[in-house]
């Protein structure tokens, strides 16, 4: 009980993070990130 009271904030944050990440992955958002990341980003290097 003491452990939960002391650590609940960050544990809830981690749990929320994992759930949101899973929802994003299920919506195909990781694939969108990958598609962007494997092409040279012209904006990032100041050309596009």
């Amino acid at each position, binding site marked *: 009980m003491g452990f939960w009271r002391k650590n609940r904030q960050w544990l809830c944050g*981690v749990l929320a*993070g994992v759930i949101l*990440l899973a929802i*994003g992955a299920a919506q195909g958002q990781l694939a969108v990130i990958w598609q*962007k*990341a494997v092409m*040279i980003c012209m*904006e*990032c290097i*100041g050309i596009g």
Partner: protein
Amino acid sequence: MMKKIRLTVQLLFTIITNGYTYGFLNGKIYRGGLKYVCVPGLNCYSCPGAFASCPIGALQALLNQQGFQIPFAMIGFFFLFGSLLGRFVCGWLCPFGLVQDLLHKIPVFRKKKTLPFHRYLKYGKYAVLLLLVGVGSMFLFGGFAKVPAFCKYLCPSGTLLGAIPLLSANESLRSQIGGLFFWKFGILLLIVILSIKYFRPFCQYLCPLGAIYGLFNRFSLVQIHWEKERCISCKACERACPAALSIAEISRSPECIRCGKCIEACPEACLHFGRSGKREGTSENINLHTKKGAES
């Protein structure tokens, strides 16, 4: 000791996550499956050595999609790393933070912790997060496509880790340089010069990733715990803090990057990494309390 450990961790993490040597030699970038995931720090995914993606670039990629989708994956990523580490990421795992730390070691100029008007300028990173990463990425268009406004107009990490190595190895890219490149190069130059005199100016005033992780600092797993009852109020920690924080602000403030300089400076060892009350009752504590009690 803490200083050496931190530098080693920073160097190792930067080298491991940017170890795609083939990319540096041929002016190309890594295109494998590891880029489905992000590194926690600001690390341009167009760096020829980068094995993983940049969290701010990834967030903008999701915001740049047609229509509007809540970027669940990146919000989840920030909750995960923020809740575990807070701005420990900035202090220990960010390659651009390492670059600024190294520049600050150059022995020219009289070193200062913060820029003039620090109390106002420190909110600049929230403005960058809101206006460039958020609003800019959703509403700024280049032709018919949305643009990653932070990467395009501000990010010096992209210029240093992405543009310079790519352009020096790839002639076809070099031939396309225009005004935008010189704008971004100018920003990088300004940050480089400021970093020599001031402690991490980009992290303190402009970094949207630092702004996000700072929101988690108050309750993240990794904290700097202050044993108030043993503190002798010598203020050695406040003098050592590169972000000019008071002892009450250290760890809890969104500006604390958990660099550990306060821990190293404390003569009574009453600051340490850990969570509140974790070390209560250890033999080390009991001995120190006894010693203090005997002295008084």
